[in-house]
C-alpha cells in the first residue's frame, strides 16, 4: 500500500512538467519525479525488521535490509544532480537571451 505514495509523487512531478509554463518550475517538477523514484527504490529494498546494511564488529548475522537499491539510489542521485545542474545552467542562459522564463514566449523554433 505504501507504494502508492511514490507513484502519487511521480504523477505530481509529471503533471508539473506538462502543465507549468515557467522553466524553473519545470526543473523543480523533474526533480520531484526523480525523488519519487528514489523513494520507490528505498521502499522496495525494505525487509521487515531489517537493520541498515552496515557491518559492525561483533554484530554478525543481523538481518539487513536490501543494500542494492540504496547503492542504486546513490547513483541515480548523482545522475539527477548532473541533470539538474545542466538544466539550471541552460535556463539561466535562456533567461539572458530571451529575458523571460515563460516557455510561451520562448519560441524561436518553428514546430
Amino acid at each position, binding site marked *: 500500500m505504501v507504494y502508492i505514495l511514490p507513484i502519487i509523487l511521480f504523477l505530481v512531478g509529471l503533471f508539473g512538467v506538462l502543465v507549468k509554463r515557467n522553466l524553473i518550475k519545470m526543473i523543480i517538477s523533474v526533480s520531484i519525479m526523480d525523488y519519487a523514484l528514489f523513494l520507490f527504490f528505498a521502499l522496495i529494498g525494505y525487509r521487515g525488521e531489517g537493520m541498515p546494511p*552496515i557491518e559492525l*564488529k561483533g554484530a554478525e548475522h543481523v538481518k539487513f535490509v536490501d543494500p542494492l537499491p540504496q547503492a542504486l539510489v546513490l547513483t541515480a542521485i*548523482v545522475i539527477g544532480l548532473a541533470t539538474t*545542474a545542466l538544466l539550471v*545552467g541552460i535556463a539561466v542562459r535562456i533567461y539572458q537571451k530571451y529575458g523571460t522564463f515563460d516557455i510561451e514566449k520562448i519560441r524561436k523554433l518553428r514546430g
Partner: protein
Amino acid sequence: MSEIVKTVSRIFAPLIIVFGIYVTLHGHLTPGGGFAGGLIIAGAVVLLVLAYGGEREKLEGEKKSTSRLESSGILLFWLVAVLGLVVGGIFFLNIMGKGLPFTIFSAGIIPVCNIAIAVEVGGAISTILLALVLFEKDEN
C-alpha cells in the same frame, strides 16, 4: 555579506573540510564515502564563495582550478580501474591487499577510489556553483 557571516564562515569552513575528509577516509567502514565527503568539502567552498564573493577574474581563476581538480580526480579513478586491467587482466580488479576488516587500511582499492571520487565530486560541485555565479555576473 555582513561581518558576522564572514567571520562565522571563516571559522567553520576548515571544520567542514576536515569533516569531509573524515567521511571520505572512513567511506568503506561507515555510512558516507567519496560522494558524501566530496559534497561536504564542496559545501565549504560554497559557504566561502557566498560569504566573500569576489571579483570576476578571481572567480574565473578559481573555476579553472576546481575544474582541473575534477578532471584529475576522474583520471585517478580511471587509473585505479586500468591498473586492475594491467596487473590482473580484469577491469576494476581489486589488486591491493584486503587488510584487516574494520580497520582503516582494509578493502583494497576502495579507499583509493573513495579519495578519487571525493576529489572529483568536490571539484565538480564547486565548478558548477562557480559557473552559475559567473553566469549571474554576466547579466550585469
